[in-house]
């Protein structure tokens, strides 16, 4: 069938001809995800209303689990996690943007190699890298020696098992996932546009603020999403680098499922988290809707 690409001006009521290609491209992934993700998830919702038995669920209908999940301790835990994810994501983006900018706009011929260099570390197991941070941040490590040598710090390094260490680990873990979408978007801004802006008299800073940054919005939004949302469920880094203190919501839910064998309460907590985060993400998506398409 002839491909039809309706423009944005197509009235909503009008019957839209959906090309088979698009239907397939949408349908197949959706079907896969439905079977292997949505259907099992329905179990979770179902369990959240049940009664917990040790390591199982007795079906039933009760809101007890939700009441417990909304209790002070878990609500605090969730808020703490939100702050944590927000801060972590912001730090990550701050670190990633200049890096992606360099690769996209200043690396020239070496662009692919520059990007590859940033991604190479990710071919080592993540856990090994976090465990290596434990070694690096411990007392008496090379980092301590270096910092003392550079007079940036004096005395023993006591960063391990602190919040600082967790943020270092988190930024480390999510840096490439933030760099990639930023790079993808920044690379597609034609050099001619930047040149035109400079030719018209804008300073580099103005060009950046009023041309580059707006055009990079989809990348920034994607990077923010890809970092902030998974950070909400982060388990490993706070455990290994943070001394396992300050129970974040991912850990709290996990402990209900695993240590307490309370699937019902864990499910209720998970459903609440999903709703809360879903609302925030939907709001953000709505706010940035008009600004997302930035084809130059």
């Amino acid at each position, binding site marked *: 069938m002839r491909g039809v690409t309706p423009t944005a001006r197509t009235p909503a009521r009008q019957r839209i001809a959906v090309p088979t290609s698009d239907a397939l491209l949408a349908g197949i992934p959706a079907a896969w995800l439905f079977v292997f993700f949505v259907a099992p998830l329905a179990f979770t919702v179902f369990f959240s209303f049940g009664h917990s038995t040790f390591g199982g669920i007795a079906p039933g209908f009760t809101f007890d689990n939700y009441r417990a999940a909304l209790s002070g301790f878990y609500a605090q835990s969730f808020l703490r996690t939100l702050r944590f994810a927000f801060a972590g994501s912001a730090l990550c983006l701050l670190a990633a943007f200049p890096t992606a900018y360099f690769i996209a706009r*200043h690396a020239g011929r070496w662009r692919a190699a520059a990007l590859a260099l*940033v991604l190479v570390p990710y071919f080592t197991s993540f856990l090994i890298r976090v465990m290596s941070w434990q070694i690096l941040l411990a007392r008496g490590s090379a980092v301590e020696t270096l910092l003392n040598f550079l007079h940036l710090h004096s005395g023993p390094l006591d960063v391990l098992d602190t919040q600082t260490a967790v943020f270092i680990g988190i930024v480390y873990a999510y840096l490439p996932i933030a760099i990639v*979408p930023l790079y993808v978007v920044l690379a597609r801004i034609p050099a001619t546009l930047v040149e035109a802006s400079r030719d018209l008299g804008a300073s580099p800073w103005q060009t950046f603020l009023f041309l580059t940054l707006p055009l990079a919005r989809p990348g920034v939004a994607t990077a923010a999403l890809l970092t902030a949302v998974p950070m909400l469920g982060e388990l490993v880094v706070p455990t290994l680098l943070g001394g396992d203190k300050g129970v974040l919501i991912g850990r709290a839910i*996990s402990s209900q499922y695993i240590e307490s064998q309370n699937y019902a309460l864990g499910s209720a907590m998970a459903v609440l988290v999903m709703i809360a985060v879903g609302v925030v993400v939907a709001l953000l998506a709505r706010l940035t809707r008009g600004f997302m*398409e930035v084809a130059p």
Partner: protein
Amino acid sequence: MSRTRLAFRQPAGIGFGAWYLLAVAFLFAPIATSVIYSFNVGSLGKQTSLFTGWTLHWYAMAWRDLTLRRAVETSVVASFWSALLATLLGSALGFTMVRHPVRRVRSLLSGLTYLLLIVPETVTGVSLLLFYAVTRVPLSLATLIAGITPLAIAVTALIVRAGVLTLDRRYEEASADLGANRWQTLRFVILPHLAPAVGAGALMAYVFSFDNLVVSTFLTTPRVNTLPVYLFGSLQYGPAPTVYAAAAAIMFFTLALIGLAALLYRLAARRDLQARYQ
């Protein structure tokens, strides 16, 4: 090319370059550490943060440790298949999230993708375990792959989506006007533009799948164990440097493979260019 040199001469270029190098140093610091410490003698057969001496013993041990080797094999195989599926399905999803004509469908697809990111992995893991229990599907490598694919799909989809958002619709319209059907437009106009995004998405999908810990923990079987599951368990009683040795070996092997592929690709590209201009 002259523009690149110009960019470097500007202070901004140097500043960004310095930041980039700092970022690379930051990213490589633990890699270097893990490689160095894979040679660490350690204490009482366990890894410590104190470097006590050089030895190759752990590399030999890693080779002889069948449990570790099998876990590594399984991780590599499962991540490959998961990355393949995620690239195909994720790219399709990322594309239609933006370009599907019906707005409701686009919202639904976006919602589905975000949901994948939002759900805590423990929840996915337990629900999959119970799902397979209820549907009486025996656990296997296939169910492991199916279990770790969704997150990888989400990652690929979002990266490809970022790429699609920078696509100019007019190329597609022009292509349609010139008589191409949708498949041809996809293949010859859209895909080449999306190649970097798809490539990056594929790479990220592989990495995410390889490092998957939580969902994998629930889906291991007597014959299917992954490296992250093994590693996380070793933290209980303290890891031996063996696992560092294994990780270093995998990394060098993977890099060598990629390096070889990149080299071959460049050689072939040069050949193509030469052929075209002869």
